[in-house]
């Protein structure tokens, strides 16, 4: 019930949340359409090629004889799924590292944070490219998701650590220690609920980040190009020099849709952040911070 009330308040007082939610819902609806597609995603020359947007083909057709709209539904579904899988996997790592590092302190903290800072600083893109270079055709969708998750947890782990550090000094932690709770229990039963709100907002940003990686890599042709994704669509359009031959609808619609997703998720993330920080929430409700 309270979740519903939070949602209602957010919708009423937070314009960013309302816009973000709307954008994400539209993208989700498009992704949902993929289940009703009349064509299998990988079939080519199922419709006449290079037809501009019309009543029959609302977003036109590609030079490979695919309907842009139905292709787009599969592409956005796979892209979105990629982002969610990466975000979920990397959340597990950043929660583990952040909570343990923040609670333990001392040597454990120092070592974990050195590794953490390394992952923040190291330029990940060349490493991903190197990875593709070695794997080549063996590079599957799942493989890329795992490797991206392994590289993308560090920034949020630091955030979680800072919260865990302040939780450690609170009364209830001391009481838990004195009543003989084990470290694992304290961290995951007592502290986890406090960091969950911030984890939700970092999830949105992490989905954005990983989709950005996926789009970039597949546009360059550095992923499994036979799984339809947004980046893969742009890759094929580039391969057929769609822009030069005037088939703008092949490139424009995937880019527009993915930009809607980026902005939607980002707005959700910042509005949640504001909700978590009560000072800015007060000023939004008309009070004085």
């Amino acid at each position: 019930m309270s979740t519903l009330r939070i949602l209602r308040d957010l919708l009423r007082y937070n314009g960013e949340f309302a816009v973000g939610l709307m954008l994400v819902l539209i993208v989700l609806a498009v992704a949902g359409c993929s289940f009703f597609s009349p064509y299998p995603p990988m079939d080519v020359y199922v419709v006449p090629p290079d037809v501009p947007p019309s009543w029959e083909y609302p977003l036109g057709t590609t030079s490979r004889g695919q309907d842009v709209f139905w292709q787009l539904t599969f592409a956005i579904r796979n892209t979105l799924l990629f982002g969610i899988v990466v975000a979920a996997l990397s959340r597990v790592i950043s929660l583990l590292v952040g909570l343990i590092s923040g609670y333990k302190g001392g040597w454990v903290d120092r070592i974990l944070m050195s590794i953490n800072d390394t992952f923040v600083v190291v330029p990940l893109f060349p490493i991903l490219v190197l990875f593709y270079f070695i794997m080549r055709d063996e590079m599957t969708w799942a493989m890329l998701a795992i490797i991206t998750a392994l590289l993308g947890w560090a920034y949020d782990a630091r955030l979680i650590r800072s919260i865990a550090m302040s939780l450690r000094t609170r009364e209830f932690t001391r009481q838990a220690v004195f009543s003989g709770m084990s470290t694992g229990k304290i961290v995951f039963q007592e502290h986890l609920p406090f960091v969950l709100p911030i984890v939700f907002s970092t999830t949105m940003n992490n989905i954005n980040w990983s989709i950005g990686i996926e789009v970039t890599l597949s546009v360059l042709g550095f992923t499994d190009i036979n799984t339809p994704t947004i980046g893969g669509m742009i890759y094929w359009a580039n391969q057929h020099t769609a822009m030069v031959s005037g088939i703008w609808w092949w490139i424009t619609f995937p880019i527009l849709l993915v930009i809607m997703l980026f902005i939607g998720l980002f707005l959700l993330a910042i509005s949640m952040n504001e909700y978590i920080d009560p000072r800015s929430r007060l000023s939004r409700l008309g009070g004085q911070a």
Partner: protein
Amino acid sequence: MRAYLAYLSKRLVQFAVVVFVGINITYLVTHMTPINPVEQSISAATTYGATSPEAIEMMRQSLRQLYGLEGTPWEQYVAFWKRVLVGDFGPSLSAFPTPVSQLILRALPWTVGLLLVSTLLTWILGNLLGGLAGYYRNSRILKAFGVLSMGIHPIPYYVVAFVLLIIFGFLWPVLPISGGATMASDRSNTFAFALDVVVHSILPVLSLMAVGIGGWFMGMRALVSNIVTEDYVVYAELAGVKRGKILRSYVMRNALGPQVTGLALQLGAIFNGAIITEQVFGYPGVGSLLISAVHAGDYSLVLGITTVSIVAVSATVLLIDLLYPLIDPRVEAR
């Protein structure tokens, strides 16, 4: 001084850790994957037409040496580090026999220049506008800029660069969309050449700035609007200190510290963005070199670029950290 030395040594250790872990990831990626790169290259090379078994065996030998797959795992690991420390990645396969290091050195100035200009412009402009927006909360123009930069901020570099390319390359072709300078241009006239380079860099720099500026803007605005409520700012206002001076010396100065740290943390991501932007605009830097190396199957070049970028980025982060006490002298006391 003593405190600064302690700070210095801590930063140096962190630098060493970053390089060590980064290079080890590179090693793991190249050696621990279930794929045998040698067999892959051979099958790629022998797909078209038959080759004699002796020739294949010779090829296998030389490829094994090149990929550093000779000897026990420990020997391979030591040999890998030796090559990294000396900076010798052997000759490039696609531009044989030019050494990899020479190719990278040729491309590096372009990337460094692009990064330096765009990062400094983005950081300064973003913080300045963000500071103003946090201090003068009711300004319409700054609010509009905030919404605009926030809208572009979450979009990845590739997409922004690509959209700019379409706008200035197809819809309104006024700027050069490819290359670092006009091809086969006369380089004897230094001024004209410099101008040419600047004109060619406008689009890449713009796309890097468009993505980057929102983050600094929002960060600075949040920091400043927090600092403005502090007692000492209220006191300075009541004491009649000029608003401009309050903003410059009381508010911005204090907010600058976290933003410098932020720059150090973001540098890796900014570098990634530059690589991608270069590829989109055909800029002759490290990024384009990396992508073309992958397409050409040039293993030593890909490995060389990855290693050099890890070392270069972490060295720059170290440099920012070392300069940090100039902005915030309190670090030394910590």
